[in-house]
C-alpha cells in the first residue's frame, strides 16, 4: 500500500473491509487507520466497491454463479504455491474425512437403490427441537423457540436436505399430548423425530446471552441415539441471534456433508428471509401460535406488533392479509424478498387468490408441495381453492392428504365438514365435525362449524344451540356471535338478534366494530321498520367517521351505503336508493378496482326496481361488453337482464336470464327474483318450490337480505292462493303479517296481504 510501511496491516485490510477479522485484529486495524492517513484514504477510495461486494444482490448473485464454476487454475493469486501444495493436501484430507462422515451419516438415511445400482440418497431429514435456554431457564424472551424456528427457516432454504417444519413439530407434540411444550427429554425428542420421518435430530442450547450469544447444537441419529456431530458457536458482542443462527446453519451443513452443489445454492442470511428484529420475530411466533388455536384477533394483534417493529416483515403482512385486510397481501408481495422459498410460494398464491387468479394460486401451491411435500398448509389451501371452484372431489383429496400429514389438523377437518356438506354428504359432514369435537372439545370453533352445518340443513334450533355452546367456551367468539345474530334474524327474534350483534360492536379493533355495525339495522329490518333502520345506519356511518374510517377504502363503510340503499328502495325512495348505491359503488371501485363489474348486476336491479327500464337495459348491455372485455363470467349481466325482464313485466325473459347464471353465483337475492319471475309467469309449481327452498336456506346471505326473507312469506302466500291451496296461503299471509306487525305504515305488500287474508277467510 503506497505510503504505508506496515505490510501486516496491508494484508488485513481487505478482510477488515469485508468484516472477516477477529475482534482483536479489527481493533489493531482501526487503531492503525486512525494513525495512517494512507491506509484510511485507501479504504475510503474502495468503500463503494466493498459495499457492492457485501450487499448488492446482483453482485452476490454473480459471485454465487462464479463459485459454482470448477476451478481452472491455482496459479495467479497463489503463483508461488506449488500446484499440489498447501491447498491440495488439506482438500484431499478433507475429502477423506468427508467420505468417512458421509458413511457415518448415510447409514441411517433412506438410501434408494435403483436398478442401475446407483445409490441415491433421499437426503437427511432433520427435526429441530427448541433450543434449551440455559442462560434463562424460564426463557421469558422465547429465545429457544426463536433460535429453533430460525434454524428451521434457514436450513429449509437448502434444496439438499429436508427439515421438519415448526408446524409439523408442533402438531406432533400436540399428538403426544404435549402441545406448546418447549422442552422435551431425549427419548420424547426421538419419538417426535421418528413420527415426523426424520433421521437426524438437532438438539441444542443457548449457553449464554450476555454479553454475547453462545449456542450449541448436537446432531443425533434418531435410530441409534448416537451423537453424529456437535457444534458450538460464539458471537461477538454485536452479533444478534440471527447472525449466530447463520453461523450454526453453516456448521450444520458442513456436518451433514451435503453434496457439493449445496455449497453454491443461494443461502441468504436468515434475517434477510425473516426479519432483522428479534422482537418482531417474537411477536410473529406468538401470532402463529395463537393462529393455531383460532384466536384470530389476538393473533392479528401480534402480527400488527411485528410489522410495527419491522415494516418489511413479509410473512407478518401475509397473515394480516389472511386475518384482516386482504389488501395487505400487496405489502407482503412488496417485501417478498424478505421471505424464504416456501413462504414466497404462500405469498404469491394468496396474492393470486386476491387477484382472482385461482389457476396461478393453485400452481404456486403445487410447486410448493413438490419441494415441501409434508407442508400441510399447502394441501389445505389447495383443498380450499378446489372447494371454491366447486371441484369437491379434488378438494376432499387435498384435505384428506393434509389430514394424513396431521391427523389433528383442525382447519382441514373443519373445511372437510363444509365440503362434504356441499357435496350433499350430510352424515359425513357431521362425522367430520364429531371428529373435530373429539379433538378440540374446549374450543369454540367446532361448535360453530356444527352450528353452520345444522343451519345449512335447516336445523335452525340445533344450530342456535351449537352456536351458544361455542359462546359458552369463548363469549366473544366473533363467528358464533354473527351466526347467532343471523339465526335470530331469520327466526324473526329481533331482540335476541340485536343483542348478539351489539356484542360484536364492543372491542378494541375499529375495523371489527365497523363490520359489526353493518348488522345493527337488521333487527329493525326484521320488524319492517325502515325509518328506524336508516337512523341506525346513519348513526353507524357517523361512528365510522369518528373512528377515522370514513375514507373511501373502507369496505365496511361501503356496505352500509349498500344496506341503506335497500332500505330506501323498500320505502319507495328510488332516487335516493340509487344515490346510496352509487356511494357504495364508488367505495367498492376504490377497494376492488378490478371487480366492480361483478357488482353492477345490483345496480341494474335497482334501476329496474325504480322503473328506469331503458336506462337499466342500457347499463346491462354495457356491463356485458365490459365483462366480455375482462373475459369474466357473464353472471352479473344475466342477473341484470333477469331483473330488467322481471320489472318490465316480461317474466319469461327474466326466467331465461336467471337460468343462465352459474350455480355458484346463484345466491339468495337472485333465487328470490327468479322465484318471483316464476310467480309472475304463472309457473306456480316452480315458484312454490323456489320460495319454499328460500325458507329452509339458513345462510348468512339470507340474513343479509332479511327484508326479502320476510317477503318470501307474502309471495309464497300468493303462490299458494293462486294454486288454490288456500289453507297454506292463509298460514303464510298470517305469518307475514305477524312478523311485520309493528312495521312502518304504507308497505304495499302488507296492505295487499291483509286484503288477501280477509278475502281468503271470507271464502272459507
Amino acid at each position: 500500500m503506497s505510503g504505508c510501511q506496515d505490510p501486516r496491516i496491508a494484508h488485513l485490510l481487505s478482510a477488515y473491509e469485508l468484516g472477516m477479522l477477529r475482534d482483536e485484529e479489527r481493533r489493531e486495524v482501526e487503531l492503525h487507520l486512525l494513525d495512517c492517513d494512507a491506509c484510511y484514504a485507501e479504504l475510503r477510495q474502495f468503500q463503494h466497491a466493498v459495499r457492492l461486494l457485501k450487499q448488492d444482490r446482483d453482485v452476490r448473485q454473480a459471485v454465487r454463479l462464479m463459485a459454482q464454476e470448477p476451478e481452472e487454475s491455482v496459479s495467479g493469486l497463489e503463483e508461488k504455491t506449488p500446484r499440489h501444495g498447501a491447498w491440495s493436501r488439506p482438500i484431499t484430507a478433507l475429502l477423506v474425512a468427508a467420505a468417512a462422515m458421509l458413511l457415518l451419516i448415510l447409514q441411517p438415511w433412506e438410501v434408494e437403490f435403483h436398478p442401475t445400482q446407483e445409490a441415491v440418497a433421499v437426503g437427511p431429514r432433520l427435526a429441530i427441537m427448541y433450543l434449551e435456554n440455559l442462560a434463562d431457564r424460564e426463557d421469558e424472551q422465547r429465545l429457544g423457540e426463536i433460535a429453533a424456528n430460525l434454524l428451521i427457516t434457514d436450513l429449509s432454504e437448502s434444496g439438499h436436505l429436508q427439515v421438519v417444519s415448526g408446524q409439523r413439530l408442533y402438531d406432533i407434540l400436540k399428538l403426544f399430548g404435549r402441545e406448546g411444550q418447549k422442552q422435551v427429554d431425549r427419548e420424547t425428542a426421538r419419538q417426535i423425530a421418528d413420527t415426523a420421518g426424520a433421521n437426524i435430530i438437532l438438539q441444542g442450547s443457548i449457553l449464554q446471552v450476555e454479553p454475547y450469544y453462545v449456542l450449541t447444537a448436537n446432531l443425533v441419529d434418531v435410530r441409534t441415539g448416537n451423537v453424529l456431530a456437535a457444534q458450538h458457536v460464539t458471537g461477538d458482542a454485536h452479533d444478534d441471534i440471527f447472525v449466530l443462527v447463520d453461523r450454526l446453519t453453516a456448521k450444520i451443513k458442513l456436518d451433514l456433508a451435503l453434496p457439493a452443489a449445496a455449497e453454491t445454492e443461494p443461502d441468504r442470511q436468515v434475517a434477510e428471509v425473516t426479519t432483522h428484529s428479534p422482537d418482531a420475530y417474537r411477536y410473529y411466533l406468538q401470532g402463529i401460535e395463537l393462529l393455531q388455536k383460532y384466536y384470530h384477533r389476538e393473533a392479528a394483534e401480534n402480527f400488527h406488533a411485528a410489522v410495527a417493529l419491522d415494516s418489511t416483515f413479509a410473512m407478518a403482512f401475509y397473515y394480516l392479509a389472511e386475518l384482516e385486510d386482504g389488501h395487505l397481501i400487496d405489502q407482503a408481495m412488496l417485501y417478498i424478498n424478505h421471505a424464504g422459498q416456501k413462504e414466497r410460494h404462500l405469498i404469491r398464491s394468496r396474492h393470486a387468490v386476491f387477484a382472482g387468479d385461482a389457476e396461478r394460486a393453485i400452481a404456486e401451491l403445487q410447486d410448493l408441495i413438490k419441494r415441501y411435500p409434508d407442508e400441510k398448509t399447502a394441501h389445505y389451501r389447495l383443498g380450499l381453492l378446489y372447494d371454491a371452484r366447486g371441484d369437491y372431489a379434488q378438494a376432499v383429496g387435498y384435505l384428506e392428504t393434509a389430514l394424513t400429514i396431521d391427523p389433528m389438523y383442525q382447519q382441514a377437518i373443519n373445511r372437510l365438514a363444509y365440503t362434504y356438506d356441499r357435496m350433499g354428504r350430510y352424515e359425513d359432514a357431521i362425522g367430520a365435525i364429531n371428529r373435530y369435537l373429539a379433538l378440540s372439545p374446549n374450543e369454540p370453533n367446532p361448535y360453530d362449524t356444527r352450528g353452520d352445518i345444522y343451519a345449512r340443513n335447516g336445523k335452525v334450533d340445533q344450530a342456535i344451540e351449537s352456536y351458544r355452546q361455542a359462546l359458552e367456551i369463548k363469549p366473544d367468539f366473533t363467528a358464533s356471535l354473527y351466526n347467532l345474530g343471523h339465526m335470530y334474524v331469520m327466526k324473526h327474534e329481533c331482540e335476541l338478534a340485536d343483542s348478539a350483534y351489539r356484542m360484536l360492536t364492543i372491542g378494541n379493533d375499529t375495523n371489527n366494530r365497523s363490520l359489526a355495525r353493518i348488522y345493527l339495522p337488521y333487527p329493525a329490518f326484521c320488524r319492517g321498520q325502515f325509518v328506524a333502520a336508516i337512523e341506525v345506519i346513519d348513526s353507524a356511518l357517523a361512528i365510522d367517521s369518528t373512528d377515522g374510517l370514513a375514507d373511501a377504502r373502507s369496505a365496511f363503510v361501503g356496505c352500509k351505503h349498500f344496506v341503506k340503499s335497500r332500505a330506501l328502495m323498500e320505502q319507495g325512495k328510488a332516487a335516493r336508493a340509487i344515490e346510496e348505491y352509487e356511494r357504495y359503488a364508488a367505495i367498492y371501485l376504490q377497494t376492488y378496482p378490478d371487480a366492480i363489474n361483478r357488482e353492477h348486476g345490483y345496480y341494474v336491479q335497482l334501476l329496474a326496481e325504480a322503473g328506469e327500464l331503458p336506462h337499466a337495459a342500457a347499463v346491462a348491455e354495457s356491463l356485458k361488453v365490459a365483462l366480455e372485455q375482462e373475459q369474466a363470467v357473464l353472471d352479473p349481466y344475466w342477473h341484470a337482464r333477469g331483473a330488467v325482464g322481471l320489472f318490465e313485466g316480461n317474466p319469461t325473459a327474466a326466467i331465461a336470464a336467471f337460468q343462465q347464471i352459474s350455480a355458484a353465483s346463484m345466491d339468495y337475492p337472485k333465487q328470490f327474483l327468479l322465484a318471483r319471475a316464476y310467480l309472475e309467469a304463472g309457473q306456480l309449481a316452480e315458484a312454490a318450490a323456489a320460495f319454499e327452498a328460500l325458507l329452509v336456506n339458513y345462510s348468512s346471505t339470507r340474513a343479509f337480505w332479511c327484508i326479502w326473507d320476510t317477503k318470501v312469506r307474502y309471495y309464497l302466500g300468493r303462490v299458494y292462493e293462486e294454486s288454490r291451496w288456500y289453507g297454506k296461503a292463509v298460514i303464510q299471509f298470517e305469518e307475514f303479517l305477524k312478523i311485520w306487525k309493528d312495521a312502518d305504515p304504507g308497505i304495499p305488500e302488507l296492505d295487499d296481504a291483509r286484503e288477501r287474508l280477509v278475502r281468503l277467510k271470507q271464502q272459507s
Partner: protein
Amino acid sequence: MAESELNALYRLVQDGDASAEERLFQGLGERFGYFAQQRVGNVQDAEELVQESLMVIAEKYREIEITASFTAWAYKILENKLLYYYRTKKNRAGRFVALEDAVPSPDSSTSDPSFKRRLLLCLKRINRINTRFARLLNLQHQGYTVEDMCDKLGTTRNAIYIILSRARSMLKTCLEKGDVE
C-alpha cells in the same frame, strides 16, 4: 510511522491553535463514522454513537493528560460506546429500522450502474485467474465464519487473508485500468 494527521492536529490544539480543533474533530468524526458503520450497520445509530463519543472526547480531552497516543485514547471511548450499545441493543426494539430503510442500498438508483458493471466484469476476470476469491465471498455471503471457511477449504486464517488481500489488489487495478494484468 510518521506522526499522523490527527495526532499532529491534537498537538497543535494543545499548543493553543484553536483553528486545529475543528479539523481534529472533523477528521476523527469521519474515521469513527467509518468504523461505527462497519459494526452497527445502521446509519442513524452509527451517527449517534459517533456524536456521543465525540462529545465525551470534547469534554475530556483538555482536562486529562494523554500520555500516549491521542487517537488510541479517543478510540477507546468509541469502543466503550459501541460495547454499551450492544449491551443495551435488546432494549431498543422500538427503534428498530430495517437495514434497507436506513441505509441506501448500493443497488438502488443512487448507485452508479456503470461502476457496478465494471466491478462485475473485473470479478469475472479475476475469477478466470483464480476462483478462490469468489468462493470465499460466496461462503461469506452464506454466513460462514472464517473458521468454517478454513475447515471447508482446509486452509488457515492467514492464507485466507492473503487471498483476499491479493484479490483486492487485483480488483483495484482492474477498476482503475480495466484489466487485472
